């Protein structure tokens, strides 16, 4: 099929594209250019041909898109090569491939967002947002399905758990990570200790999250006995995952602070630690803030380490130092894996999707917050 198209399109499109010679009386420097309407023209032609090609083998939107894309890339490359020369032809090819890769990368993202919105929206209501699963049993779900009543039970406890555990892991990892990065960049001078730390931070980056969870469990088992499961254990597990990210991003940000600024401060008789605290970090803070946010976004969706450290709760628990706790990921996991009512799984699935939507919204809000923080702290420009 593609053989047909490659043979056909160039001739076909060239007839369409080449403007009549009268229009050619132009700037000699601008000679041999495709007119502006060439791209939409080729795209339209490719769409028609793509539609034709896709109907041959059973029409679907996917095949239509694929055929159209292939035809468009080949046709525009060939036409540009013929009209504008081989260099422009290669340029067109590269441009189109880059766009194609971009669109490809966008498909899963858009699809995830769409699915989560579609399936999660029905479950989002004030009841869901502000109630826990306390007292919601299989019988309750069965009753609401039979009566066609709204689904009861919500993710309030999981939202609280997610916020608290993430907050505590941030509180642990940001100072540790930032101070490590400051040591590496400002004091370590690439000595043996600094190189060792860098090596271990790299190793830490690759730790599977379940191992971090087991580490925290084991640590607290030694300290408090084998059944110690609570929010703070999960926070420790998550900080094991967060610290390397925070170290890495802070390190990169500190490295790009120009040395001139440090020297300028030293030359004013400012001590090194003050220079770091008041010149270097403020200059880099916006980058550090977004690095920290990315680190949070990375751990907020962790499930396995939470299960082995904080257990699972159905009720609201605001104390990270005692009792089990739920987070949104573990909530989703359990709603899907062991639905509250084994005979009527729909309420549980609806709650799981709604919780997934909540989680995505939380990460997005975090990212927006990071941008805001970055903007607030960024070095002032302009007059």
């Amino acid at each position, binding site marked *: 099929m593609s053989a047909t198209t490659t043979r056909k399109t160039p001739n076909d499109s060239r007839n369409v594209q080449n403007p009549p010679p009268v229009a050619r009386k132009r700037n000699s420097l601008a000679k041999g250019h495709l007119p502006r309407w060439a791209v939409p023209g080729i795209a339209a032609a490719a769409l028609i041909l793509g539609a034709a090609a896709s109907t041959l083998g059973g029409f679907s939107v996917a095949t239509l898109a694929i055929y159209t894309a292939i035809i468009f890339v080949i046709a525009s490359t060939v036409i540009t090569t013929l009209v504008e020369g081989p260099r422009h032809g290669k340029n067109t090819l590269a441009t189109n491939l880059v766009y194609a890769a971009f669109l490809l990368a966008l498909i899963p993202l858009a699809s995830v967002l769409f699915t989560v919105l579609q399936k999660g929206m029905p479950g989002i209501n004030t009841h869901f947002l502000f109630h826990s699963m306390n007292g919601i049993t299989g019988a309750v779900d069965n009753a609401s399905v039979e009566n066609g009543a709204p689904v009861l039970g919500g993710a309030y406890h999981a939202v609280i758990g997610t916020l608290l555990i993430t907050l505590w892991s941030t509180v642990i990892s940001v100072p540790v990570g930032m101070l490590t990065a400051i040591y590496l960049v400002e004091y370590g001078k690439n000595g043996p200790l600094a190189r060792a730390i860098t090596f271990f931070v790299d190793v830490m980056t690759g730790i599977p999250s379940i191992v971090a969870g087991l580490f925290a469990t084991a640590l607290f088992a030694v300290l408090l006995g084998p059944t110690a499961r609570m929010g703070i254990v999960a926070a420790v597990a998550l900080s094991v995952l967060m610290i390397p990210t925070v170290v890495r991003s802070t390190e990169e940000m500190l490295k790009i602070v*120009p040395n001139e600024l440090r*020297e300028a*401060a030293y*030359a004013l*008789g400012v*001590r090194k630690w003050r220079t770091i605290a008041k*010149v270097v970090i403020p200059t880099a803070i916006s980058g550090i803030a977004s690095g920290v946010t990315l680190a949070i976004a990375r751990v907020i969706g962790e499930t396995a380490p939470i299960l082995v450290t904080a257990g699972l709760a159905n009720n609201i628990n605001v104390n990270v130092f005692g009792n089990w706790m739920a987070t949104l990921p573990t909530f989703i996991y359990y709603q899907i894996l062991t639905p509250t009512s084994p005979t009527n799984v729909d309420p549980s699935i609806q709650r799981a999707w709604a919780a997934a939507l909540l989680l995505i919204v939380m990460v997005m809000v975090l990212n927006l917050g990071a941008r805001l923080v970055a903007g607030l702290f960024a070095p*002032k*420009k302009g*007059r």
Partner: protein
Amino acid sequence: MSKRIDVKDLNVYYSKFLAVEDVNIEIEAKSVTAFIGPSGCGKSTFLRTLNRMHEVIPGGRVEGEVLLDGDNLYEPGVDPVTVRSQIGMVFQRPNPFPTMSIKDNVLAGVKLNGKKISRSDADSLVEKSLRGANLWNEVKDRLDKPGSGLSGGQQQRLCIARTIAVKPQVILMDEPCSALDPISTLAIEDLINELKSEFTVVIVTHNMQQAARVSDKTAFFNIAGTGKPGKLIEYADTATIFSNPSVKATEDYVSGRFG
């Protein structure tokens, strides 16, 4: 409010590389001294040893003595921070702190050190320093705007204001005009002439006319070849260096025959 500098048998190293060898020089208080010489001969390196900025570079170290009114800067137990608060430095590229307003840039030496300063004292210090750097009239209406929003020449004068705000004894300047247009350059040269009444000024420059215009004494540095250490070749009154130097190399350099 200004002190003299005497340098005795100073060798300057980058790790093992001897960059400047055996410099002896006496710099009078309340004078302007110019360092000239071909690129790479160690002017900047030597200048940075005068306020212990050289050791900020990894591997940077010195042998010999630098005396500030008789006190050796390199004696064990001397805190480089104290040295730098007495001997200020202006860099080749203007480097105002990007996170700070013009006013805070001027007050940087005070504020970064965590010293408390009353609002009225701060305001008068800002005005005095900016007037001292010939910048007050241009920025008095936008003291709270960021320092990076100024032109290059204004930024450099802001850096000078920042330096004089900490009331040093000596001001070192490493090619302060090399990034500036002729008008800003003139403004800074005028400023150097005024600074002389209060401070000891040492300036590195590639511009012979500038050295001749602003300095009382001139030191000519030279280098025998790549990888060889730079040396102080001749140090005398500026008029002598430019009209009647005693060393052939100096004459060749100032008359533009090499370098």
